[in-house]
């Protein structure tokens, strides 16, 4: 495993742990999701830089576009949740329990 691979893998794992163990706020989970996408962006940019050709140069840009869409969706859901549940604390999302 090259140092670059290790770097973005550990960044991804940290973000994933943050997302999986989200405890209080909605927005911190969204931030961890953005961190995941950022680590993948760095990974794809490093992949492009390892070759001399521009064949795979569009991949980080497309990832950026999809990540922006996802972030926008997440923020819209944050606003919707704050409107319906009156808070962005995750413990308040308890309407759908058994």
């Amino acid at each position, binding site marked *: 495993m090259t140092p670059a691979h290790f770097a973005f893998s550990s960044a991804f794992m940290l973000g994933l742990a943050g997302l999986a163990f989200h405890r209080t706020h909605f927005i911190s989970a969204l931030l961890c999701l953005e961190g*995941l996408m950022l680590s993948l962006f760095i990974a794809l940019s490093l992949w492009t830089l390892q070759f001399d050709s521009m064949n795979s140069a569009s991949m980080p840009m497309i990832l950026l576009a999809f990540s922006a869409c996802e972030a926008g969706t997440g923020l819209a859901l944050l606003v919707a949740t704050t409107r319906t549940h009156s808070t962005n604390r995750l413990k308040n999302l308890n309407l*759908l329990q058994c």
Partner: protein
Amino acid sequence: MAPPIYSALIISLGLGTTMTFASTHWYLAWMGIEINTLAIIPLMSQNHIPRATEATTKYFFAQATASATLLFASISNAFLTGEWDILQTPNTLTYSLITLALAMKIGLAPLHSWMPEVMQGLSLLTGLILSTWQKLAPLYLIYQIQPTNSNIFIVLGLLSIIVGGWGGFNQVQLRKILAYSSIAHLGWMILILSFSPPLALLTILIYLLMTFSLFSSFMLTRATHINSLATTWAKIPILTISTPLILLSLGGLPPLTGFMPKWLILQELTKQDLAPIATLAALSSLFSLYFYLRLSYAMTLTMPPNNPAGTLPWRLNPRHNTTLMSLATTSTICLLPVTPAIMAMLPL
């Protein structure tokens, strides 16, 4: 919802799945899955009630995590082996990570905890799209990665069958029951995937058929609780005959279609010298059969105690076009004798 927006979302749903089906590169497959996720989120939360918003939020988190993990595993595979082709994913670690990410996408145990709550918060039509259409793209990817090492699939499959049965025991909400039934059926599908991919395809197709007919039956009377099932006899009496048969077909009882995949899967597992696993799977599906039988009992064999015969509701024209539903219901009940023809068509 305004028609242009609604049609744009439906077209995007179709586009996402088509992109994943048509791709041989992991990146395009990931893009198709992302488009699917983004397109269904407005559909899920369109009526802006708190339950729908909460269900959408939970769905969004689960699917976003799984998509990001899928892309991470593909990029790691590229860094380690230089391959972006879906059909050649030789590295074992990234292969397992891809399988787990796709399992979280479709809601297999132990990554299933989002599924019952999400289904509970949605309308029946959106729940139908979630159970059937949204599963197609990840299932296709799992089908394509040519599983060779069967351990992870057996573990996922057995856990899903057990959890899908046991989790539905105490439920009275129909959508949660349908979520657990989906988990159990996909468990059967993934159990056989490494041994005979055509059988897994057959299981998926029959599961889609049965789920579609059950959802359509519930949509006709807008039933979301066992209590509302119990008054079906007054609204649409024919449903009290067809829906229990669909439920028993989902449970896998012999003269009905649902027996076909279970039978063929048990036969294939026995041929591979895995009889204990086959026994465990068959016994665990008795859990699911319990709650299907409870639904059939509530629907057909009971009558509400305080309903005088003179207060039957007006039978207005049905709102839904029942053409597809009647086709699906007939296929769910009557397809078992066609098993030899189907087996001849699949390259088993």
